[in-house]
């Protein structure tokens, strides 16, 4: 047994990120993570003792695969595409408009630009829903194309756990409800 299973897990999380940033194929990342887990379980070493820091080890793996070395800036340039950036900005703006609209609805005031509060609120909610759907669809496609597959079980090693999705959905919803409640309190 490894000394600290949690530290193996967090080491593997870090390593996965660094390998992704170096564009190591998903199947190979799965191999590398499985090797780390298997090796430290056998030797009882800490992962950073046996393999060095996740960053350095990712460099070594990329070198062994003859992948070109590239910095995070180059990775971002390749990974971030204009449509995605545009969607992100639109989502941010509609979140702001939605929050403002909910506050106005709660407070019984007029909304942005003096419009009836429900109009920008409904519009922002629609845009937000469409943008979220697009992002989720894109995420699904990418995960299928280059998943980090555990060579031992065939399982997706970087699966998007249910609780993460819950956090992603619940936190904004709670905040938006809080805006509405805040408006109610302020308006009364």
């Amino acid at each position, binding site marked *: 047994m490894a000394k600290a299973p949690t530290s193996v897990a967090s080491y593997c999380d870090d390593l996965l990120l660094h390998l992704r940033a170096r564009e190591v194929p998903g199947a190979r990342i799965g*191999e*590398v993570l*499985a*090797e*780390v*887990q*298997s*090796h*430290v*379980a*056998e*030797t009882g*070493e800490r992962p950073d*003792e*046996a*393999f*060095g820091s996740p960053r*350095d*080890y990712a460099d*070594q*793996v990329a*070198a*062994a*695969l003859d992948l070109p070395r590239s910095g995070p800036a180059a990775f971002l340039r390749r990974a971030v595409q204009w449509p995605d950036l545009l969607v992100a900005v639109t989502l941010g703006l509609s979140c702001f408009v939605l929050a403002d609209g909910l506050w106005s609805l709660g407070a019984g005031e007029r909304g942005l630009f003096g419009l009836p509060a429900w109009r920008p609120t409904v519009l922002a909610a629609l845009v937000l829903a469409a943008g979220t759907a697009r992002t989720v669809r894109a995420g699904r496609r990418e995960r299928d194309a280059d998943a980090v597959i555990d*060579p*031992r079980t065939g399982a997706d090693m970087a699966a998007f756990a249910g609780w993460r999705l819950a956090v992603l959905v619940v936190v904004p919803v709670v905040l938006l409800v809080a805006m509405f409640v805040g408006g109610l309190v302020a308006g009364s």
Partner: protein
Amino acid sequence: MSDDRWPAEWLRGVLSLCVLRIVADGPTYGYAIAARLAEAGLGEVKGGTLYPLLTRLETEGWVTSNWTAGEGGPGRKFFALTDAGAQALLQRGQQWHVFTQRAAGLLQSVPTAR
């Protein structure tokens, strides 16, 4: 020799050949390879060195790998020599032999320090 701390560049030169030799004895896995290397007196080789090297050998087509389920553990990745690997081992092994003999010949007489 108990203190097996060789200069890193020596090990870099010969490590893949030694790993190939160990795998030639039959399918084996990372930890066992590291243990064999230490036993042979070549020092402690860390996982961070060993697995990228095995990946290179696999890319060359000199070894193949497959996972076996461990009993309650996270499994082992076994490496086996291919025909091409056996050929490379034979060739490079002979070359290495000549190389070290020549180096030893040159280093046979070392002038005493003044």
